[in-house]
């Protein structure tokens, strides 16, 4: 586990608390599926992401945690092509994503489940799902899309029951399932999820995390942004902690779960409990 300081400049006094990297499951010679180097994202003059470096290896679940406004969604928008104003390097399977628009990114195998779900409320559940396969739905791909539809409805049977219902009338949890199902319709190899647990009851969150684990076991690679750090770190292999546009901490999920600073800031433990554990 590595602590990094905020400024991005090496500062030998602060935050050089490097813990042993205990995650040995992934051999280091695997070339990462997604490699982000020195990513800086801009909204006009404002730099919202300030030089982030991270990697996602094939088959991993990676958690990004951090406070509100720390730049997690901005990073997701940059990877998915929605935010073109960034510098640095984003390589997906060795291909640079610079200058690619969202349709091109989706076609290349990356799907985003956007923050706040962003389903299409007046449209039927079915139409929402079909829209997920938008970039693939040419005449030839009909059967292929049908197959994707079956995979998704097998994963979320509730969606099939609601096929013709307007998506806006689904419950929050169902809408999240729809959003995930919709992005799976594009048959991605890398799935980006931006706060899938937002506003959901613990039981539903658990269900969604189970689904993500299942998807990973089927070969999907997942980059997961979460406020619910505990849920995310429970299923993740590794994680990165964001603070005001920079990565301040990275490490294996177990290490992060055990880290005192993470506990205090993101796992909602109060100081007493926190003191108890450290005694």
């Amino acid at each position: 586990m590595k602590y990094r300081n905020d400024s991005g400049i090496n500062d030998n006094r602060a935050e050089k608390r490097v813990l042993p990297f205990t995650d040995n499951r992934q051999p280091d010679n695997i070339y990462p599926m997604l490699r982000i180097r020195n990513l800086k994202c801009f909204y006009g003059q404002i730099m919202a992401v300030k030089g982030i470096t991270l990697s996602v290896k094939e088959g991993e679940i990676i958690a990004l945690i951090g406070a509100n406004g720390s730049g997690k969604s901005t990073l997701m928008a940059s990877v998915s092509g929605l935010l073109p104003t960034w510098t640095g390097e984003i390589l997906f399977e060795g291909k640079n994503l610079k200058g690619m628009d969202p349709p091109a990114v989706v076609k290349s195998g990356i799907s985003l489940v956007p923050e706040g779900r962003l389903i299409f409320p007046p449209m039927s559940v079915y139409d929402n799902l079909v829209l997920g396969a938008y970039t693939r739905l040419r005449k030839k791909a009909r059967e292929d899309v049908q197959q994707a539809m079956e995979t998704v409805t097998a994963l979320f049977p509730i969606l099939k029951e609601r096929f013709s219902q307007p998506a806006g009338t689904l419950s929050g949890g169902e809408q999240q399932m729809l959003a995930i199902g919709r992005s799976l319709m594009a048959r991605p190899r890398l799935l980006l999820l931006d706060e899938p647990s937002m506003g959901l009851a613990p039981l539903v969150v658990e269900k969604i995390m189970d689904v993500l684990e299942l998807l990973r076991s089927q070969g999907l690679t997942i980059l997961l942004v979460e406020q619910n750090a505990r849920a995310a770190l429970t299923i993740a292999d590794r994680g990165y902690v964001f603070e005001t546009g920079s990565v301040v901490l990275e490490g294996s999920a177990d290490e992060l779960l055990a880290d005192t600073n993470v506990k205090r800031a993101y796992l909602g433990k109060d100081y007493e409990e926190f003191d108890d554990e450290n005694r």
Partner: protein
Amino acid sequence: MIRTDKHLIACFVFAAAATATGLLVENAYYLQVMIFIGINTLLALSLNMLMGYAGQISLGHAAFYGIGAYTTAILSTTYNISPWLALPAAVFTAMAIAYFVGRPTLRLTGYYLAMGTLGFGIIVNIIFREWRSVTGGASGFVGIPPLEIGSFAFDTDRRYFFLVWGVVLFFFIICRRIIDSRVGRALRAIHDGEHAAAAVGVDTAKMKLKIFVLSAAMASLAGFLYAHQIFFISPGTFSFLASIRIVTMVVIGGMASIWGSLLGASLLTLLPEWLHAFADYEMMIYGLVLMLVMIFLPQGLTRGILDIYENSRKKNDK
């Protein structure tokens, strides 16, 4: 798919009704009113594709209507070119202008898009008015020839009625096909959330531009039909108020509804005719009717009538 079949049946019924009307109605005045309803339906439908389905407002749609009318008027009258050659020229001109205006303008959203298209409409109208040597200026353009195929001229109201409603029916079918396709789903996605549409891989900018150009093409075709029906055009017909009228037809008839375009166009064409009798109060009653429709049927006539029908059926079932 089921929807498409239903729509086809509806189109058949509609075509039969239109044919019967065209054959049975003798009164020239009624035929003329119905020709204008047809032209307005085409206009409303063109804007409905853009506004009702894709959610992009245009307050300058009459500009394309006018571009269609003036292009054919100038080519077929001043230059003696066959109207059938002027037709593609008119449609192409409108599409080209839509393309170049749409590219920067469609980046705007909401009120800003409304202002942008409003400005465009006003500029085009000033050109119609001030470019006197070409357009005839404020006093208008006279002497536009009728449409002919060989020795067959669309010179009676009955013949023109069939021409216009044939075109309308054709576009009912085309538009329905677009709406039920992958493209139509993408348009509705843009309407519901442009950001989300982009996230699933819809090329939103390109898609909006496409539908804007299609919409302009349909409006210019309406302008073509208008010019060769009344042989005289003037800038007032294509003014800012005309653009507002088209928006009103769409909203009153029902957004995102093909049949709504027909109902909205019918009401807004017929109302002024019916209200002539009220002389001084005409415009007041006109405004009042529009207000009442919006207050009691906020989703427009189509949805409103369907709701009333479904409710009464439910009551009868009990």
